[in-house]
């Protein structure tokens, strides 16, 4: 199965979307993205963290240290109201862009 490079500018969208389901730590977010993409998205896991820090600084997500199911200390990220609004914008942009590209691919 061919692995796909993550499209530029979509990491924020994917992370916000995954966090819409509830608070998760960084590793869980990357695993969730892999699961949902059937492990087809090729992205360095480390690249997620700078994106999370950037989104937190912008107020789209919040974070809190907590314990995992196995009792390990981890930092859990959750979506804020501003993040939810941003997710809406990102989703609209994506749908608009992908719709336009699909149309061109079909009709050109």
């Amino acid at each position, binding site marked *: 199965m061919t692995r796909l490079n993550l499209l530029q*500018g979509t990491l924020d969208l994917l992370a916000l979307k995954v966090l819409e389901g509830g608070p998760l730590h960084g590793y869980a977010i990357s695993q969730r993205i892999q699961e949902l993409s059937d492990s087809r998205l090729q992205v360095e896991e480390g690249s997620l*963290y700078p994106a999370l820090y*950037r989104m937190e600084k912008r107020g789209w997500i919040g974070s809190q240290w907590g314990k995992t199911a196995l009792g390990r200390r981890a930092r859990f990220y959750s979506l804020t109201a501003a993040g939810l609004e941003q997710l809406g914008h990102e989703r609209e942009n994506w749908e608009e862009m992908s719709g336009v590209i699909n149309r061109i691919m079909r009709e050109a």
Partner: protein
Amino acid sequence: MVNQIVQRWLERRRLKQQINEEIAFHIEQAVEEELERGLSPSDARREARRRFGSARSVRGLCLEFARHGELKPDRPQAPFAVLAVVAASTPVVLAALLLPQHVYQQPIQAIDTLAVSTRSVPWVRMDGRRFDELGQELGVFQGSAGFQPISLQGVFGSNAEHWLTGLSVTPNFLDLLETPLLHGAGFQPRGGDQVVVSHELWRSRLGADPKVIGRSLALGGASYKIVGVAPAAFWALRPTENFWLTNSSRTERAWYVARLSSHLTPESADTALAAGGLVATGRPVSLSQIRQRAPRAALWIVSSNWALLLILGLVQTVSLRQTLVGVRARWRAAALSYLFLSVKALPVLASLAVCWTALVESSGVAFSPVFAFCASFLFLLASIAVVWWSLVDQTLRCVHCLRTLRMPLDRGTVGSILFDLPGSEYICSHGHGTLYLPAPTSARLQEPTWTPPSGLWHELVFSNKKA
């Protein structure tokens, strides 16, 4: 103020710990996952690290984003061409500001005039005491003057005697050469025994005192009235000349120098003289065969800059050899790197040389040999510092865009970071790649390695710009 600095340091430290803990947790989780897949512990750790990517880059980016919310914008950078013009014009402006105020103004004109004369209005040098008179009768010469090399003992200060070399000349000698004097009016007709001293003699033996004009100088047991000080770069026959004197008792002249009429070449002058039956022992010789002394400072500037450029080039070549491995368009990158290095270093070196020249060579002040040595040594140290700075700065620049690399991260054990020189990793903020400078060891200097950009960088840089 101190409180703010401490707070900032504590905050940065807390952030670092937090990021380290988060990364460690992520990698542990990934290792466990790989172990469950059946990999050995070492393979599992290796695979987990590969999946994560460069932890150092991630740490640096997280710090940057946590503190600023985005990558700090680069400082505005002037276009390279503007920088190059400004840098190249700096030493020229410095030279214009500093040097003309000193004795360079005149010797350069004198030397230049002499050089022009050898091309458009050739000079000739001939044997024969009456050659000039005969030549003038035939209309071959515009004018001529005689000279005779001599060595005399000069007495300075507390009866200290020094052997000096110079020329016994006819009073019109310096006028014929169109030599503007630094001080004094030069030889006067019927002025008795007179001497014009060289700039070097004036500086080293006469205290560089402008008031020496009119004083007496003891040469070869006779007393000569000082009537002029020659400019620093002037000499007639040999660069070692200390004086030019006129002496009523020394009337013999071994050599004559003459300016040819403007319509004649040395060859046609020779023919004209031969037609007059005046070819005696000499033939017209262009004075271009008499070497002109280039100003020492100019030679120093050129030679020192070329030597330092050579050193720069060699070190840069060694540095680039490893750094450019795997870089696309490496020849273009290497050429750009050399060009940038030259534009950066050479004008500074040239400016230093101009300042040094203005201070030591042409200020007209008599410096002791110790001072001159110290000044030269300081100039050398400053030049080496410029070379060192240029190379360090060049090393820490992106090989693609030549922007300064950012976010240095120390690499190594706690001990090596605290007590030794750790290795460091730098990142191009435009996503062209990362540079790793290994820690120098006592055994050898390890070469830096350039790593092309990863998917992580494409993603983060693009997203950052979009935001």
